[in-house]
C-alpha cells in the first residue's frame, strides 16, 4: 500500500486526489505556462498531460509505469500551471501523489538523509561540513566519476553545481544567542541558508533586526520538504509535527523564513493532516501556518523604510516558483527591489518562469534543467542585468551555476542580501 495523501486542500476546498485531478477539464490553457512543455512540445510533459496520466492511473486505465514515471518526474513542481488554471488544479501536489503511487521503495539514500534530518541534526551538519571540506580541497571533483559509476550521479551533479562551501553554518553564528524578552518575530532557518549559504541567513537576520526590531532564532527542525517531495510522507508528517510543537513552545509571533520553497511548504502543513482522526493536528497546523511569513512579504511591507541608493548595476528579480505560485507573492518582493534599486530596476522577460533548479530537479534531469537555465540566463542578459534577486535556495544555487557558465558578468543574490547590503551601506553613510 503506497504512502499517499489521498486528499488535497485545493483552491476549491478539500478534495480527494481523484476529484482534484478530475477538475482538469483538458482545456489546455495551462500548456504555455509549463516550462517543460514549452521546452519539449510534448503533451506528456505538460500539466494537462500529467493530470490525464494520473487520472488514468487512478482509473486503472494506464499500464505504462515507465512512461508515467517519466512524465511525472519531469514536473518541476513550479506550480505555474496552477496559477494559469481557472480552476486552480494543484498539479504539483497531484504529480507528487502520482510519483508516490509509482514509487516502490524510497531510495535508501533519501531515507537515510531524511532520517538524519529528523533525528540527528548535529550529524547532518557534521556530514555537510565534511562534504564541504572535500569540496574545498578539490577532492570532491576527483570523486565525481567514482560517484557516477557507483550510482550516485545525483551527488556528482550536486557537486558540479556547487561552487563555494561554507565551513560554518548558521547555528554556529546565531544559535547561541539569548532571545530577547519579547521578540517581534522568530527566524525560521531553512536548510539552505542554514547549512549551504549562511551568508543569506545572516543577511536576513540583520535586515529583520533593522526593519522589525529584535527577534529570536527559532532553532527549528527541518521543514520536511525533502521528505514530502522525494521521501516518505510519514517522515514529512513527523517533521511537520516537530515544527508545530516547537513553534507552539515559542510564542505566537510571526515565524519568518527566507527560503520560499520551505516557507510555502510550512504554509501548506494543514494538507498533511487530512486523514480521519487527524483533525486536531490539522487545527494546530492551521494555527502554525497562519504564523508563517516569507521574508519577501516583510520586505514588501517595509518597502518605504528601505533606503534607495546607487546600485551601479541593472537589477532584476527572478520569481522563486514557490513564492510566486506557491504563495502568490508577485508584487511584494518587487516593491522592495524597486525601492532599493530605483531606476536601476528592470523587469526581465520570463521572470516568472522556473529556472530549472526546482530542488533536486537540476541534478536528476540535467538536460532539461540546463535548457531552462540557458533561457533564464538569456532573459537576464537581454536586459543586461548585473544583479539578479531571488528568494529560494534552489534558485540561488541554480542561477549561480548558470551565471558562472554563461554570463559571469552578473551575480545572483537573495533579496535579503540586497536589503541588508543597502541598510549597511546606508548606516555607514
Amino acid at each position, binding site marked *: 500500500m503506497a504512502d499517499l495523501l489521498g486528499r488535497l486542500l485545493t483552491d476549491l476546498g478539500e478534495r480527494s486526489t481523484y476529484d482534484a485531478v478530475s477538475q482538469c477539464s483538458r*482545456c*489546455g*490553457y495551462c*500548456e504555455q505556462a509549463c516550462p517543460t512543455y514549452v521546452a519539449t*512540445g510534448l503533451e506528456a510533459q505538460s500539466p494537462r498531460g500529467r493530470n490525464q496520466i494520473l487520472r488514468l492511473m487512478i482509473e486503472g486505465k494506464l499500464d505504462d509505469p515507465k*512512461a508515467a514515471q517519466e512524465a511525472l518526474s519531469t514536473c518541476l513542481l513550479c506550480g505555474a500551471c496552477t496559477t494559469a488554471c481557472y480552476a486552480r488544479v494543484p498539479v504539483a501536489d497531484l504529480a507528487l501523489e502520482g510519483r508516490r503511487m509509482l514509487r516502490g521503495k524510497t531510495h535508501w539514500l533519501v531515507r537515510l538523509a531524511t532520517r538524519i534530518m529528523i533525528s540527528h541534526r548535529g550529524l547532518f551538519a557534521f556530514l555537510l561540513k565534511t562534504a564541504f571540506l572535500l569540496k574545498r580541497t578539490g577532492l570532491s571533483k576527483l570523486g565525481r566519476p567514482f560517484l557516477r559509476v557507483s550510482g550516485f550521479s545525483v551527488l556528482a551533479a550536486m557537486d558540479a553545481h556547487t561552487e563555494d562551501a561554507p565551513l560554518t553554518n548558521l547555528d554556529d553564528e546565531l544559535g547561541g544567542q539569548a532571545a530577547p524578552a519579547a521578540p517581534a518575530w522568530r527566524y525560521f532557518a531553512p536548510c539552505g541558508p542554514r547549512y549551504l549559504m549562511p551568508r543569506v541567513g545572516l543577511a536576513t537576520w540583520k535586515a529583520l533586526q533593522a526593519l522589525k526590531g529584535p527577534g529570536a532564532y527559532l532553532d527549528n527542525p527541518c521543514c520536511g520538504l525533502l521528505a514530502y517531495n522525494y521521501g516518505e510522507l510519514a517522515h514529512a508528517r513527523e517533521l511537520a509535527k516537530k515544527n508545530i510543537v516547537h513553534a507552539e513552545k515559542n510564542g505566537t509571533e510571526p515565524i519568518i523564513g527566507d527560503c520560499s520553497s520551505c516557507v510555502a511548504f510550512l504554509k501548506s502543513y494543514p494538507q498533511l493532516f487530512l486523514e480521519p482522526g487527524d483533525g486536531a493536528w490539522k487545527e494546530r497546523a492551521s494555527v502554525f501556518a497562519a504564523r508563517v511569513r516569507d521574508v519577501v512579504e516583510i520586505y514588501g511591507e517595509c518597502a518605504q523604510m528601505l533606503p534607495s541608493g546607487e546600485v551601479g548595476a541593472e537589477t532584476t528579480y527572478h520569481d522563486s516558483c514557490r513564492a510566486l505560485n506557491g504563495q502568490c507573492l508577485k508584487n511584494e518582493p518587487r516593491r522592495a527591489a524597486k525601492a532599493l534599486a530605483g531606476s536601476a530596476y528592470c523587469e526581465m522577460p520570463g521572470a516568472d518562469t522556473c529556472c530549472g533548479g526546482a530542488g533536486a530537479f537540476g541534478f536528476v534531469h540535467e538536460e532539461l534543467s540546463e535548457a531552462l537555465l540557458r533561457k533564464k540566463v538569456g532573459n537576464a542578459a537581454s536586459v543586461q542585468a548585473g544583479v539578479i534577486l531571488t528568494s529560494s535556495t534552489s534558485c540561488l544555487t541554480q542561477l549561480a551555476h548558470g551565471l558562472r557558465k554563461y554570463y559571469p558578468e552578473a551575480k545572483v543574490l537573495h533579496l535579503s542580501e540586497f536589503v541588508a547590503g543597502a541598510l549597511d551601506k546606508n548606516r555607514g553613510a
Partner: protein
Amino acid sequence: MRLSELRSQVSAGSLLSSPADLAVYSYDGALDRARPDAVLVARSIEDIRRAVAWCAGAKVPFVARGAGTNLSGGCIPLRGGLVIVLSRLNRILSLDAAARVACVEPGVVNLDLQTQAEAVGLFYAPDPASLKVSTIGGNAAENAGGPRCLKYGVTTNHVLAVEAVMPDGTLARFSHEDDGPELLSLLIGSEGTLGVLTKLWVRLTPIPEETRTLLAGFPSIDAAVSCVSAIIAAGILPRCLEAMDRPTVESVEAGRPLGYPKDPAVLLIELDGDRAACAREAAAIDEIGRSCGATSMRAATDPAERELLWQGRRGAYAALARLAPNVLVEDGVVPRDKLPDIVRRIQQISAKHRVKSYLLFHAGDGNIHPNIVYDERDKEQVLRVKAAGHEMLQACVELGGSLSGEHGIGIDKRDAMAWLFTPETLRLFHRVKDAVDPAHIANPDKLFPLPGAASTEKSFIRPPAAELSEYARLLVDKVREGAARKTFFRVRGASTRWNAPTPDGAVELLTTGLGRIVELDRRNYTLTVEAGVAVQELHRELESQGVFVRLPKCGGTVGGLLAARAGGGLREDILGMRLLLSNGEVVELGGKVVKNVAGYDLSRLVLGSWGTYGVILEVTMKLHARPVPAAKAAPGVQPPRFSAWASTVRRAFDPGGRLNPGLVS
C-alpha cells in the same frame, strides 16, 4: 502499421508510441477520445511531408495537432493512425513591419505572434479565448474567431497564403494572389481534413490610436440586442460587442466583485480608432444606449480601468470552470435580430433538460456561447448536457443561423450538419473531400455526417431559402436537361470580361436575367442579390437606400465580377451563395450570419472559378451603413490557368467539365 519503416524516415526520437504517449494524444478540449497508433512530434516540414507520404502509401490515417485546445473533437484520431504534433514548429520566420506580414510556422502560439507584432506597433486580429496557448496553424484550420472579429474579421480574413502538405504527401502553396479559385479559402477552416498547414503568411494590423471600453446594463436581453442593432445601423462598427446574462455576471461577481451591473443583460462595448472618432462614437453609443433603456453606462479609456471592465468578461469562463469539473462551451450563431429568440429557446431547453446554462455571446455577430457546467464522470448528466447542447444548436439552425461560429464541427457536430445543409450540398462537401483526399486519410470521419448516417432528407431543419426566381428556375431546368444529354454550357454574364463566342455545340447560360435584389435585411445588415444584377446598378440602388457594399464600382454583373474575381478583397464580405452545379443541383452555401465555420467555405472558393465550378445564382454579403473602401476592379482580366489542385477540386463540382469547357487550361 509498420512503424519502423516510418521511424527510419523521420527525425530521430520524433516518433512516439508508448502507451502513455498515445494516451495523452487521445484527447483535446472536448469530451471524445481515441488513441492513435503512433505520434510524430515533427521537427521539420520534411518530417511532415515524409510522414504524410508514408501514410498515403500505407493508407494510414493522420491527424495534425497544434495545442490540442479544440472544442469540437477535431484533434481526436478517430481511426487511430498517426497524430502529427506541430507544437515544436514554433518559429516566427519573418515579420515585415512595413508590409505588415508575418510568416510563421504552424506551431507558433497566437500570443507569441501578438507580442512580436506589438513590438512594432501591429497586432494580429484574430483573438480566440485560447490565444495564450492555441497555435496559428490550429487557428487557421478551425478558422478561429474571437471578440474583436466583429470589426476585423475572422482568421480567414487575415491569412494571405499558406504552404501545406496535401494528403498525397506533396507540398503545395496557396495564396490569394494565385489565379483561379480561392483554394486558400477552402483550406482555412477545413479542420485538417484536406492537408496539414506547414507555413502561414498572415496579415498584421496597425494598433489604433485609442481604444475605449464601455459597460452597459439593460433591463432585458431584448433591450440589449436592440441597442446592438441600433449601434450597427448608426454606422458604428465597434471592435467588440460582447454580452453576458445575469447568471453569468452573478457567478463572476461571486468570486470577485467588479461592480458589474446586476441587470438581466450586460453589454461590453469596445471602440477603437483615432481619438476623435472614438470620442464621437462613444457619445453616440451613450445616447443609443439610453434610448434603448440602458440602466447604467460606464466608460473607460485608461488601460487599467479598461482591464477592470474586461475582467468580468474574461473571468466569466474562469468563474464557471470553478463551479464543476467540466464546462460545455456550446457555440452557435443566429442572425443578430434573432438573439432574443435564441436566448428564450436556450432557457426553455435548459429547463427541460435540468441543466444550468450561462450565456456569453459575441452579440455583434450573433455568435452565442451557452456554457453548461457538469461533471463528465456522471454519465447520466453528460447525456442530458449533450442533449441540451444539441437542441440549442438545433434552435440556432431553425432560426436561420449556423452550427458554429468559431469552434468548428469536428466530431461533436458532424451529424448536425444535416440540419443545416441540404443533401445536395452535403454530397458536394463529400465530393470535395474525395477529390482532395481520395483515400480519406486526412483527419477522417470529421466535419460531415458519416456515409450511411441516418437519412439526411428528413433531418434538414433550416428555414427553406426563398424560392428561386422564375429566371433562375429556367436556368436550372436548362442545366438539368443538359445533364442528361451531357451538354456543354457556356456561362455568360454581361460579357464584360470575356466575350469570346460560345463554342459550337455548347448551350449558352445567360445570367443577365437574374436581376433581383432578393433581400435587403436592415436588421442584420445583409444583402442577397441575384448574380445578373449590374454592379453599377446595385451601387446606385443601395446608395439611394443609404446602405453600401464592399464591391468595386465597375461594369458587368455581380456574378461576373465574383466569378472572375476581378478585384482584390472581394472575398472579405461574402457570406453565402446559391450555386447551380452542372448536374442540375442547386447548392446553398453559407447564409445570413457573419460568422460561420460550418463546413468548407465553398462560397469563397468559387470566387475566381470562372463559372467552371458552378453558376452563381445569387450571393449573400455584408451590408454597411457607411461607404466602405473597395479595391478597384482589375481591367481586362483573362481567364486563368488553373493549378493542378484547382483542376482536382473542379472534378468535385463538375466531373464532366461541362461548364465553360476549354475556358481554363
